[in-house]
């Protein structure tokens, strides 16, 4: 497809994959938008808002479950920060009455959300629905939701309990790929009848993905990079194949040194990092982690990327939460690190 210019190494086949990926993303997004808009107008209640809550819509969620949910529910429980991002960006914050909290009894909001997110989304511990260490149905009933949006961090048993025992519909949103985020945006928009907001948001997301693939085409080579999100005395936790962190690195024009790992979230020993000798190190910050945390990791100062100053910290949420922010903030941030001036 692309030419290998004088002396530069041949373009990695990965770039082709990126382009194909992008085309798929755009097609899926466009298809979703059309389908959702059509569904919305077909199902839109003809009479006034008093009737609205009695209308329902049947959707197919990311796990392939067909769920009948009330149209435009007024009380929504969101059991994952990434879904909360979609809900917020679609202007639906006022519907949210409950959010996930680890160990709700202890005010566990801070375990799931960064201080920025808590402030931006105006979350309070009174909204806590306890999903860990074990699901506590009382905390869910307490916020009296009409609908629950959840990801797979909520256990299958808990989902069944909410659906069958408590009789509250649960829609599972677990995008399999970056483009899946756009599908989820459309899905949420369909339930709440906000096709215009969805089109605007998906437009922004597509724009960012497109920009990134253009950069990929233009650069001579992909630098090798270690993207780590946590550290302990044994080594550096990073993203393996088929994870969002890995996709993000690739679309931002980098080659992850853990792309060939055997597990999705491997811990690389310092010896493995030394031998792979990445050009760049990108580390996730937030949730108590900062540069000095990583600097305390084993053999940190012996890595040539550290010696050369080729390292950068970015928000952990941008690397780990599969939501619009990952695309809108994470991709430009990584591009800026790996290919400055291109984002």
């Amino acid at each position, binding site marked *: 497809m692309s030419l290998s210019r004088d002396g530069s190494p041949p373009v990695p086949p990965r770039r082709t994959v990126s382009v194909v990926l992008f085309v798929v993303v755009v097609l899926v997004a466009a298809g979703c938008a059309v389908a959702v808009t059509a569904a919305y107008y077909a199902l839109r209640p003809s009479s006034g808002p008093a009737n609205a809550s009695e209308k329902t819509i049947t959707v197919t969620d990311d796990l392939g479950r067909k769920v009948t949910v009330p149209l435009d529910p007024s009380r929504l429980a969101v059991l994952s920060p990434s879904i909360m991002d979609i809900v917020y960006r679609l202007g639906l914050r006022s519907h949210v009455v409950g959010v996930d909290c*680890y160990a709700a009894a202890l005010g566990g909001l801070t*375990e799931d959300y960064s201080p920025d997110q808590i402030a931006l989304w105006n979350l309070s511990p009174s909204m806590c629905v306890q999903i860990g260490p074990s699901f506590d149905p009382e905390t869910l009933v307490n916020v009296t939701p009409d609908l629950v949006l959840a990801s797979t961090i909520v256990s299958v048993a808990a989902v069944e309990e909410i659906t069958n025992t408590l009789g509250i519909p649960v829609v599972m949103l677990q995008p399999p790929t970056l483009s899946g985020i756009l599908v989820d945006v459309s899905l949420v928009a369909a339930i709440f009848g906000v096709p215009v907001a969805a089109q605007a948001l998906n437009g922004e997301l597509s724009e960012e993905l497109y920009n990134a693939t253009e950069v990929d085409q233009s650069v001579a080579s992909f630098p090798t990079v270690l993207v780590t999100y946590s550290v302990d005395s044994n080594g550096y936790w990073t993203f393996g194949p088929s994870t969002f962190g890995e996709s993000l690195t690739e679309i931002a024009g980098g080659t992850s040194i853990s792309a060939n790992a055997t597990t999705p979230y491997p811990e690389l020993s310092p010896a493995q990092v*030394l031998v792979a000798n990445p050009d760049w190190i990108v580390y996730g910050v937030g949730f108590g982690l900062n540069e000095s*945390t990583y600097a305390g990791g084993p053999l940190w100062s012996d890595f040539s990327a550290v010696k050369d100053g080729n390292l950068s910290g970015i928000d952990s949420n941008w690397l780990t939460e599969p939501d619009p922010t990952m695309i809108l903030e994470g991709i430009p941030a990584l591009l800026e690190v790996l290919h400055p001036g291109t984002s």
Partner: protein
Amino acid sequence: MAEDPRRPTSWLLGRASLGLLLAVASILVLVISPLLGSVAIPARDVFQILLHELSGGALFAQPCAGTPTSPRLCGAYTVIVWQLLLPEIVLALIVGAALGVSGGALQGIFRNPLADPFLLGISSGGTIGAAVLYVYRIEVAEADVYLPLFAFLGSVATGLVILGIARGRFSSVETLLLAGVALANLLSAILSVILLYNPNGSVQVTFWLLGGLGLATWTVDGIAFGAVVVLGSLLVLNGRELNLIQLGSEVAQSAGVDSRRVRLRVILLASMTTAVAVAFTGIIGFVGLVSPHIVRRLAGSDYRVVLPGAALVGAVFLLGARDISFLAFPGSDLPIGIFTAFAGVPFFLYLLYRQRRAVTMGGA
């Protein structure tokens, strides 16, 4: 030692063959250890780098010179071998020795072949100490200093609780041992609660729970070495007292051993020695249990021999466990505590079986 009384040659031969086996195992383990790690490095490079560094650059001025390894990769290998593998090997030896000698001393003082710092909860106490840090949300940047410190304090505190029970008036050896086992269970329950409500710290606390050599640096090795040499030597000096205590604390008392004071001293020293090990490597079970038994088989039950012997065997055993973990699962850095348990649990059951038989056969 003055003129040693004659010993029959069969006695010597039986032990010599086992001793030879141990010596061969030691050498094998020591040679093979630097070759095993999460990254496979050619043996020739490893030994050139080792000799280069150990000789201060005099030997093999250009390591990896005659091998296909590029100078850049050789630089990485040097860091790996010298700053990663070697401190880890040395730490394994130190910690193994610490666990071996304190296991031997506890078995002696409790007159029970099943006593072990792990079973008595001294190790679990260290994990609690590390976990407590997460309740107070200490800055993770300082964790390298505070975690070992808290783990050390947790172990010593547990040792003191056992001591408190030991000072009690109605403390037979059996009740003490049972109290220790109960304490260990209580501590693991407390730990579960802490982990349940502090999921952020669970990765680091799990390190203490499973045991590992990941914290090894030359500084850590230096601290551990100093502490273990001092505490271990003080323990070894109790060999004669422990010999007599095997005959019963009253007989020991009548022969001049202040049984109560020796009991307090040995439990305290053994707790502290274990605490040093736990501080840097977390819970590594069964080394303290198995090593003294191996020495008894090799060299009889004289505690003046059993204690230093258990240190030696413990060191080789732990390093061997590390090697086996790399051989069995190449490339992965599995917690070493898992492998000592794999070796230790069957041995433990075997001991239980033998003790049961001894109980039913003896008596009359």
